[in-house]
């Protein structure tokens, strides 16, 4: 691995990043390589445009939202730690993570954090709830054009209705988590290569 160009020394704050995200040294090197490859003009950070140049994201229905998730709080740039922080959500869950010191913050790739990441894809206005409107928007993104607006609205209604327990017409994070309790989220949202 360690080739001449990418050395751990090149990555600033590599230790704190490692601690925060849990990535191995080798993975961080690779990610850094990738980060530099995406950063076309060698600015040292990524802008939205850099991410938009990943062609495959253009044909992903959620492409825009995924890109947006890299830029929390309305910032315009994402630096390497921020980049890695998002990707850390997709690190596969290993068993040794489960018996963590309870005082330490939850690792980024815990089930709860993964779900939270997914939740934020729905909840654009960050009010902590997925409103029916937001659900409808996501549905629209993910469904082909043959489905009529009415059907979509029905589906959105039904979806919110199923998950909503306290009757406020929106799905909070807890309700979201509950509706997915049977699903193997850890496996769905893990990418093998991000060890």
């Amino acid at each position, binding site marked *: 691995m360690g080739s001449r160009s990418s050395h751990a020394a090149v990555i600033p704050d590599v230790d704190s990043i490692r601690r925060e995200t849990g990535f191995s040294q080798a993975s961080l090197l*690779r990610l850094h390589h990738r980060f530099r*490859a995406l950063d076309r003009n060698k600015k040292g950070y990524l802008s939205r445009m850099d991410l938009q140049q990943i*062609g495959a994201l253009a044909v992903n229905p959620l492409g825009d939202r995924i890109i947006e998730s890299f830029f929390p709080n309305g910032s315009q740039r994402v630096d390497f730690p921020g980049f890695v922080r998002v990707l850390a959500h997709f690190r596969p869950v290993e068993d040794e993570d489960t018996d963590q010191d309870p005082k330490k913050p939850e690792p980024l790739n815990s089930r709860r954090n993964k779900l939270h990441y997914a939740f934020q*894809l729905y909840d654009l206005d960050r009010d902590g709830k997925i409103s029916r*409107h937001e659900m409808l928007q996501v549905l629209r993104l993910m469904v082909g054009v043959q489905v009529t607006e009415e059907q979509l609205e029905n589906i959105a209604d039904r979806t919110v209705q199923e998950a909503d327990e306290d009757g406020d017409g929106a799905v909070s994070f807890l309700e979201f988590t509950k509706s997915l309790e049977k699903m193997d989220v850890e496996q769905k949202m893990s*990418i093998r290569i991000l060890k």
Partner: protein
Amino acid sequence: MALQMFMTFGSWNCLLLLVALEYSKASSDVNESANSTAQHAPNAWFAASSSEPDERISVFELDYDYVQIPYEVTLWILLASLAKIGFHLYHKLPGLMPESCLLILVGALVGGIIFGTDHKSPPVMDSSIYFLYLLPPIVLEGGYFMPTRPFFENIGSILWWAVLGALINALGIGLSLYLICQVQAFGLGDVNLLQNLLFGSLISAVDPVAVLAVFEEARVNEQLYMMIFGEALLNDGITVVLYNMLIAFTKMHKFEDIEPVDILAGCARFIIVGVGGVMFGIVFGFISAFITRFTQNISAIEPLIVFMFSYLSYLAAETLYLSGILAITACAVTMKKYVEENVSQTSYTTIKYFMKMLSSVSETLIFIFMGVSTVGKNHEWNWAFICFTLAFCQIWRAISVFALFYVSNQFRTFPFSIKDQCIIFYSGVRGAGSFSLAFLLPLSLFPRKKMFVTATLVVIYFTVFIQGITIGPLVRYLDVKKTNKKESINEELHIRLMDHLKAGIEDVCGHWSHYQVRDKFKKFDHRYLRKILIRENLPKSSIVSLYKKLEMKQAIEMVETGILSSTAFSIPHQAQRIQGIKRLSPEDVESIRDILTCNMYQVRQRTLSYNKYNLKPQTSEKQAKEILIRRQNTLRESMRKGHSLPWGKPAGTKNIRYLSFPYGNPQSAGRDTRAAGFSDDDGSNPGSPSITFSAHSRIRSLQKQQAPEIIPMKSLRRGGKTLSFGYQRSTSQEEHMGGSRRVALRPKPPFHAVDEEGESGGESEGEAFAVRSRWTTDRGHGRDYHRSHSPLLQRK
């Protein structure tokens, strides 16, 4: 219903065949007698068709012998094709059993008919026909459709597994059978070691790709897929090399006094044959790539060049007793990359389809021969030999899989799980290759050839039918985590969202591989090879305009059917709808579920998918277009309303920059481009214009979807590189800077975001290239600009 149609087809064809055969018998009798009389009769040319020696011109003649061979061959191929049509009409079948099953059945049917009518089947497959005509297309197709990047990433494991696996299997089976033959009770004493080894080598020729289609939907991961594919690719070559070597041994050493020197020589020969073949193939590949550089004016011969050079590499290698199969494979792999970029789009499609067609025909013919051999009197059934063969095939395959993978897992970053290994073990289905090799055993050296052929047939039938049919359920069983399946709608939606999300993040991560070697190769490739082998790119304006038209047409349709007009960002309805959430009945739920399952966009398949028997239609292309158009529109709508982008930025922020557009900029004028500054670079850097434009890349992105390649990444890459319209990296940089700047008209944004990124350098793992461009269906905002150049496409 579909099955009945198929049966009807089948039966009509059988009828036709029967009729033809009857006629042939009749006419051959007639012809014989006619010929004999013809010698005596002075007017020979009259007598050819009539049995009476008097001189009448017959009005209706039948001469079947003349056309017999092509006629029957064509009829067989047609029959197989009709069977395939029937097979696919009933859409569940392809998921149940591999297509080889079907071909074998058709072959058996034809064999039965021929046997039943006692007809001498004319084109008997012999060694030269098989090796010269039938085998190359099959191998060429395998090599051409192989995805190169994953192949080379995994090349170590693939070579280790394919080469050693074939060797272990061949030698293992051979030796075990030899031991069995030593047992007197089975009556096999006369089969010596060499013959057993030879049989072992031919029976270990697997054809695992045939079963790939069966478990395709189980999302086999890329590495596993590559293992299977790689094995299939190299296995043929290796077994044929072994086979030829052992035949040479058998010829030389009739007394079985093989000295160690010979064995060493054999091993050395094996290596030379293999490596030499590959070298030949690479050389021919480069030559043909070089030649396609110059064919832009006669693009009709491009497919011809590709095929002829591949075939030539095969023949040239065979002349020198090197492995033609490996040569043709290497030629296809080398050639593919450069040829794809050089040839025109239509030639590219032609090459692919023609290759599929040829290989399909070859394989059909081989299976028919196999069927013909099955039904017949040429069998020698020996229970012991056959049963032990079957048993040893499975045992040795298991041994080789688990042992070899155990070792190679130590060195891999992503080891293969036991489940993967089981799948590889179980996919050891034999196919046409082993049958052909068995059939072509020289009878003089193998007095018990019939027994070998019978045993081979049994193994093939067993593996194809039993393993082929059960592998689907097995894979699904191994793959399934959850058991029951009535997911709520919530779950379905969220699962799909997560799948898309995962695919997207995987794309962000890109492909990881052993960078050094790949980078070095890429640099070398870029610096030298591409300059020599790839033609200078000229803008292909006709294609650009064609795609523009298609895009526009689709956009128009979408809008007209009212789909896009739905307001994406209307005021939240919640306020009005808190009550009145109706309770939906179960049927409604069901119907909703159906709607969702049918209509949700498929997750982009990052894993590869290969079907040996046909080219997948591109459903993903349409989906991709829809997604792109919608995004376009969404963006535009949001801009228009003055909202910020849907992701929560406060409206009215001026991150949008207007850049001025120079009048009469020739470049842009020539290219229908439009530029908008949409900079989301930091606002603190006003000096740098952020450039964007060129509808080309947009088109290119569609172009990519166009190529009926099932591997989206690959097609993206290809699209990005071809049709660069002179967009070499350097020029794209310059265009980036060059600027299109447009005068800001008013503070309020009545403009659109067109933005796109020029083509990216294509460096960096060759995958991050810009291909997204968004253009807007401008509806009249165009008049707000001063634009000198040609209008954009939107006008509706």
